[in-house]
């Protein structure tokens, strides 16, 4: 090290010189992130509250419209759209807790921390998986309308799929349910996911692989395949609805790519760092934190935008909503026995006679 003479300087005013001499070889120092933390304290609660407001209003409206129409879900797509709205509503419900926790620390105790984190994780995964279900439903609906298409499936199938999706989401939320804790750091309590120190690298690796395969690659793969097949089918068809249908497919895929992929890529880099035990410089580490924060906000925005992209673009939803608004919930009005008027039957998803151009949007 070549600093042996300096090491004899021990105490007092000369120790400064010693430190300089010693630090000729750079010593790892604590990485202070006050600036990123300040940004996070402003950014995270404002995104959370905005998405919570959008998500509660939009998904609440979807659910209210459905309940007011007092109609059992007629097609698999409408059943899954309903579950998607439910998942997003639950996610939106946890966001004010996250915002309050970021602003003034977690004050609700460890059990609530686990419950809220678990609900957050489960509903985030459920939303993603239901998006994949909807893409599959839409493809099947189109394929069935073709002459050689498959036969209609049993009506209970969609509910079975929904139950499986929620169970899978709970499984994916297990780490959050088990390992979230309410810990103290610098005078503030925080609710966060911390894997216990005894957990081996194998368990962490297995958990990461499960999250990747079930929570991301599977739904994204299904979505990509279904919308690609759907797009191909639509390109091959003629008709006035074709353009509109293609436009919506492009909008859905674009929204997904813009909102979800940046965060997934940021997480990929972060997880690779974690698994490879790679060390970064302090500025690089801060850039990574910023990237995760901003892209995480975008990924969250997906839950607030789902009603706009999926439900509001549907013809049936808009008809139901118009009727809900006009009749004030169906109870007053001239309709016999106070029942909701039947919607003019332009088309129906459950009818085997449906035409593909309309049925695709009619959920």
């Amino acid at each position, binding site marked *: 090290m070549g600093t042996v003479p300096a090491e004899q300087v021990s105490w007092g005013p000369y*120790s400064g010189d010693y430190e300089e001499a*010693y630090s000729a070889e750079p010593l790892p120092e604590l990485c202070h992130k006050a600036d990123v933390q300040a940004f996070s304290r402003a950014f995270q609660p404002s995104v959370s509250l905005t998405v919570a407001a959008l998500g509660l209003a939009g998904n609440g409206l979807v659910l209210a419209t459905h309940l007011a129409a007092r109609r059992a879900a007629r097609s698999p797509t409408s059943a899954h759209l309903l579950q998607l709205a439910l998942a997003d509503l639950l996610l939106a419900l946890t966001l004010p807790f996250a915002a309050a926790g*970021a602003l003034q620390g977690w004050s609700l105790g460890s059990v609530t921390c686990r419950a809220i984190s678990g609900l957050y*994780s489960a509903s985030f995964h459920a939303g993603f998986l239901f998006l994949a279900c909807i893409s599959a439903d839409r493809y099947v609906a189109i394929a069935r309308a073709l002459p050689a298409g498959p036969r209609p499936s049993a009506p209970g199938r969609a509910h079975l799929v929904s139950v499986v999706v929620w169970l899978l989401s709970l499984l994916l939320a297990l780490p959050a349910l088990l390992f979230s804790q309410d810990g103290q750091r610098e005078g503030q309590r925080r609710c966060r996911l911390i894997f216990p120190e005894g957990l081996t690298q194998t368990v962490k690796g297995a958990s990461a692989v499960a999250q990747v395969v079930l929570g991301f690659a599977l739904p994204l793969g299904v979505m990509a395949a279904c*919308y690609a097949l759907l797009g*191909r089918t639509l390109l091959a068809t003629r008709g006035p609805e074709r353009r509109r249908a293609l436009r919506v497919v492009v909008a859905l895929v674009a929204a997904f790519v813009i909102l*979800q992929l940046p965060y*997934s890529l940021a997480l990929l880099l972060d997880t690779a760092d974690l698994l490879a035990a790679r*060390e970064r410089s302090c500025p690089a580490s801060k850039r990574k934190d910023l990237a995760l924060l901003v892209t995480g906000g975008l990924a969250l925005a997906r839950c607030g935008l789902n009603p706009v992209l999926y439900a509001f673009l549907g013809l049936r939803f808009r008809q139901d909503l118009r009727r809900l608004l006009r009749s004030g919930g169906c109870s007053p009005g001239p309709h016999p026995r106070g029942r909701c008027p039947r919607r003019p039957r332009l088309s129906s998803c459950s009818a085997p006679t449906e035409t593909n151009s309309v049925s695709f949007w009619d959920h």
Partner: protein
Amino acid sequence: MASYAATLLALSLLSLWTSPALGDANDAEDCCLSVTQHPIPGNLVRAFRYLLIRDGCRLPAVVFTTLKGRELCAPPGQPWVERIIKRLKRKSAKSKHHRN
């Protein structure tokens, strides 16, 4: 369309760990990104504290505050680190005793 799907699939295989953690787990905590392998002379250190995994850090570390106020990262459990910690504890106990 097929190449588009292939691109999306490739991206999906690249991507890991999708759900953002509640209240951002990437808290951007002050942490040590690495620890020194060379012993720090104990007489330069005036304080210490632990930053462990339960504090939200990936790399557990002992942070030594030097007389000049730099905060250096050391590996917990190493004999030289434990020696410095013991010395600092003894010193602080003594000064407390003096005050009393």
